[in-house]
């Protein structure tokens, strides 16, 4: 094994070691031991990733197997690494955000009895995510895919005595199974047609797959690659929370805030985006699949943004914003602008992690009150949280020169340049989405940090139910008591905020040129000749500063600006207006408040349908057929038979001898009559 291979191996294994130590020996090494070990593990992974990044920059990519897991027939399953610019970028993002979240957790979870368990989980998550992004084959990809899903499940239900958390993690698990079903079908089709699960070998056969037609339904031939890509994308829809498989993400906010930042904003939910970018050689060959991706992404981007407007839970606002931004990335994928999608993935990872952690900081400051209606004017009390939140929000809405601007504007331009079916609709969605994003972001920002101080009014009743859980430490205090003031959080909380705020500001400006137009992803991402979006973008690009200056007069900027102004007007100048509007558009508000009835639909149609089917099968199939005929019936037959054998097994010797003689006689007769 070469030096570099060892380094590659070190990246996922260091967090794994941390997770194992903190998980198995948590009691022995104590709280300090747990966070020291896991943070060291992740720090090692981050530093190793930096070295690998340098190595890749020098042109040394790697694609090889480290360990053969099993060979069955022609199919070989390996553990292997594919280290190229796309991978190393993901490694950096994952390990950096994870490191920040680890540090932040020290402060956030300080009072929690499950401290060591939490550190073990997030390190395990880091390991799984790194295995996912570093994989060079579908099996390992699937392993990482499921492993991050598992850790996500464990973390959403981290406070397992809360019924809502258990409901939420179950929901996340089930919804992801739906996505994984599609994903697995895609992988299975690939294995069946290519006889291999290695990326390289599969990509080499992409053209054959495009030429193959299969009949899913009789008389309706589909291109194999379209079916494969849609299957894979359904997996991505589950993991990256695209409509209609998005329903689990808002509920996953039941978990502790650090994991909302790490898993449900910055890393795991982007696994789907990463996977589609990685599979660009396949997706590029199917316009149908790309159109599908485009439309789904556009719907998610716009309609999930609307929901952000009416949420009052600070984390849920950020969660819906995440959904909407994931929609943006997906749209970029559909427009064949993979590098733009990944670029947005990276910038989003920074500013969304920042926003989540800032929200967490606010929550700590407010003594675990998450309702933004009870906040206001926090600017004075939590200056660092305030300024970093402002930076995050500005980055999110796409303020020129900040990171979010570069990535989001590129997405909008790419969609404009795309000529696929559905691109017009998508362009409309992403454009309106800019306005919506600005509006809900600044609605939250103004409600939390500006205006009248609304905290300190006794405890309201929304969380009354939670008080039953005496075991959960964090539930002991909700909100500020009258007269109590919020306070800035300890340094372990705000240092990560600052550390994330810096890239949120500058990373876009610094990296747009090499990443989008400088051929950084050459060799990682394949774009077909027919898809011009990136080419047109490159023609119009004249440097990062020029792009920002030019945008000051463009439609998206004006939309964002008007969103901010409108939010300012509604929530700071005339707070009566939103309430009046709410009155006026009652049905629309109800629709949004019920999240377009997705949950209701799932409950009635899928859950209810499954229950109906289940009870039907139980009554007819189980009680009548299985219990009645098979179980009781066969038990009767067996009993009857057993009684019969007892009749023969009399204990009388002559009878035994007689049966032996009969046996011989029957055999003899049979053989002699046979011929």
């Amino acid at each position, binding site marked *: 094994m070469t030096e570099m291979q060892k380094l590659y191996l070190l990246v996922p294994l260091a967090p794994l070691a941390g997770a194992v130590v903190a998980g198995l020996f948590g009691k022995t090494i104590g709280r300090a031991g747990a966070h020291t070990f896991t943070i060291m593990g992740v720090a090692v992974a981050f530093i190793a990733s930096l070295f690998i990044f340098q190595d890749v920059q020098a042109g040394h990519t790697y694609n090889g197997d480290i360990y053969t897991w099993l060979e069955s027939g022609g199919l070989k399953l390996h553990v292997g690494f594919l280290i190229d610019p796309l991978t190393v970028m993901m490694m950096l993002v994952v390990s950096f955000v994870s490191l920040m979240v680890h540090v932040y957790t020290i402060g956030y979870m300080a009072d929690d009895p499950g401290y060591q368990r939490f550190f073990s989980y997030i390190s395990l998550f880091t390991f799984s995510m790194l295995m996912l992004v570093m994989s060079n084959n579908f099996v390992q990809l699937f392993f990482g895919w499921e492993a991050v899903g598992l850790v996500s499940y464990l973390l959403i239900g981290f406070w397992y005595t809360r019924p809502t958390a258990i409901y939420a993690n179950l929901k996340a698990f089930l919804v992801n199974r739906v996505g994984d079903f599609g994903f697995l079908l895609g992988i299975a089709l690939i294995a069946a047609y290519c006889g291999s699960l290695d990326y390289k070998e599969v990509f080499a056969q992409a053209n054959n797959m495009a030429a193959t037609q299969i009949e899913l339904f009789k008389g309706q031939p589909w291109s194999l690659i379209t079916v494969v890509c849609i299957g894979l994308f359904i997996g991505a829809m589950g993991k990256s929370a695209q409509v209609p498989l998005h329903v689990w993400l808002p509920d996953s906010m039941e978990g502790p805030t650090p994991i909302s930042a790490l898993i449900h904003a910055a890393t795991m939910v982007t696994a789907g985006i990463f996977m589609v970018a990685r599979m660009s050689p396949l997706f590029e060959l199917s316009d149908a699949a790309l159109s599908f991706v485009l439309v789904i992404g556009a719907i998610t981007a716009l309609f999930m943004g609307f929901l952000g407007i009416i949420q009052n839970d600070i984390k849920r606002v950020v969660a819906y914003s995440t959904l909407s931004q994931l929609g943006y990335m997906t749209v970029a994928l559909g427009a064949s602008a993979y590098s733009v999608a990944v670029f947005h993935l990276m910038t989003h990872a920074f500013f969304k992690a920042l926003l989540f952690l800032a929200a967490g900081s606010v929550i700590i400051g407010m003594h675990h009150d998450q309702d933004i209606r009870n906040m206001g004017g926090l600017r004075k009390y939590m200056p660092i949280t305030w300024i970093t939140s402002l930076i995050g929000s500005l980055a999110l809405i796409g303020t020129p020169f900040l990171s979010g601007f570069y990535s989001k504007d590129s997405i909008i331009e790419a969609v404009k340049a795309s000529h696929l079916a559905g691109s017009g609709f998508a362009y409309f969605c992403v454009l309106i989405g800019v306005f919506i994003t600005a509006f809900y972001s600044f609605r939250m920002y103004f409600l939390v940090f500006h205006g009248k101080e609304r905290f300190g009014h006794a405890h309201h009743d929304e969380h009354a139910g939670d008080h039953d859980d005496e075991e959960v430490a964090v539930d002991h205090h909700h909100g500020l008591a009258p007269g109590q003031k919020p306070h800035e959080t300890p340094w372990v909380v705000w240092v990560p905020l600052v550390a994330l705020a810096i890239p949120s500001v500058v990373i876009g400006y610094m990296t747009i040129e090499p990443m989008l137009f400088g051929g950084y992803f050459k060799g990682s991402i394949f774009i077909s000749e027919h898809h011009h979006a990136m080419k047109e973008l490159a023609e119009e690009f004249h440097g990062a500063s020029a792009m920002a200056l030019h945008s000051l007069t463009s439609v998206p900027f004006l939309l964002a600006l008007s969103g901010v102004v409108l939010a300012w007007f509604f929530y700071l100048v005339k707070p009566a207006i939103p309430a009046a509007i709410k009155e006026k558009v009652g049905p629309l508000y109800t629709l949004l408040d019920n999240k377009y009835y997705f949950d209701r639909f799932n409950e009635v149609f899928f859950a209810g349908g499954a229950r109906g089917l289940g009870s039907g099968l139980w009554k007819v199939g189980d009680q009548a057929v299985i219990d009645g005929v098979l179980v009781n019936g066969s038990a009767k037959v067996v009993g009857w038979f*057993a009684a019969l054998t007892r009749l*023969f097994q009399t204990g009388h010797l002559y009878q*035994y001898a007689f*049966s*032996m003689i009969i*046996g011989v006689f029957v055999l*003899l007769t049979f*053989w002699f009559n046979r011929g």
Partner: protein
Amino acid sequence: MNFVMPDFYPAAAEIFVAGMSLLLLVIELFAGKKKGFGFVVTLIALAGAAVITYTTADGQVSVTFSNLYISDLFGSFLKLLVYVAVAVMLVYSRDYLRVRGLDKTEYYLLVIYATLGMMVMISANHFLTIYLGLELLSLSLYTLVALDRDSSRATEAAMKYFVLGALASGLLLYGMSMVYGATGSLEISAVAQALAHGVVNKTVLVFGLVFLVSGLAFKLGVVPFHMWVPDVYHGAPTAMTLFVASAPKLAAFAMAIRLLVNGLFELAGDWQQMLMIMAVLSIALGNLAAIAQTNIKRMLAYSGISHMGFMLLGLTTGVVAGDRQFALNAYSSAMFYAVSYVVMSLASFGMVLLLSRAGFEAEKLEDFKGLNQRSPWFAALMMMVMLSMAGVPFFVGFFAKFSVLQAVVAAGYVWLAVLAVFFSLIGAFYYLRVVKLMYFDKPTDHAPITASLDMRVLLSANGLAVAALGLAPQALMSLCAFTLLRSL
């Protein structure tokens, strides 16, 4: 008449064991009231025989005593397994016999003679040698079953076993005489040659074959020659049941291979069908009847019938439409089945012995109630054995069933495999019932489990072997195939 000194080397182990039996007789004369030497001498005899068998197993096929006797790898391997099975059986039985006053020198002598009988059966190259070994084994077993002469139940069982055994021996001998009439020889390889040349009276031969197979079926205890099995297993003292249900099955398997495969391979088309009928009947009857049992010894007896049926399935698939390419696979799967059955059988009856004590036979199913509360470790072991017998992955019983079934399917008898699986599923019920009793019912018996350390350790190892062989069946599987390959 000139007498040629035979080559004793291939039969050295048998000669040694016979010598040890004489030594035991002599020691008994002088030992007086001292106890315990029988156990030690028997174990030494087994250990010595093992060493001799192991060192003389050179991979060559050698015959001696005017071709009456053969020494090959197949035989040596089975003999080694027999020694181990008998030794394990002795350790399990020691306490049981001591508290009942049955650990007389006669017992150990009879065990040695039975072992010798099995060795002779395994190494026979002549129909009469087989018969000799079989009778030596059987007579010893009859006497062993009757050893507790104050027990009317044991005496009755021995009586039935003896009379029916005599009948079976008669059938076997009659069959042999027919084969002799048809081929003019009783030496196994000569019979095979005569058949290969095809100048024999087919009618007489098939007539003889039916009788041979019947005698063999009695020894294996398959339907319709199974009637003795439940009564003997039930009636005999548990230690004797353990003996009857373990090592002799290996000898019977060897006898089947020697008689049918080595000797009458040309008639495979005929005897395969006979065995198939008996196998299907055994699997069906064994599994169904076991459900109705309340006595665990009887239950295990019926379970044994079904297992032997399953083992026979492996023997029925060696030759398909005259094509012999499946033979090795089929016979080695049957051999694997026989070996794993002996392992499981030892463990299950060992468990019954473990729970028995002075004046108490733990032979009712209720006696296993709540075992988990009395001893979680042994409950877990018993559960593993039961699951293995039921054929649950990944215990040895699963791989045994699996390898037989794949041989059956490879030979094209899919219906047979489906039928076997179906009845195995029914059979799973009574194995799982034992598990249920152990884990979910309240104990009726609260006496502490007292057993000597060697028995606890050995029984634990036995139980774990069921799991270990299930996790890594490959070594045993290839040993079976390898030794068979050398003697086919």
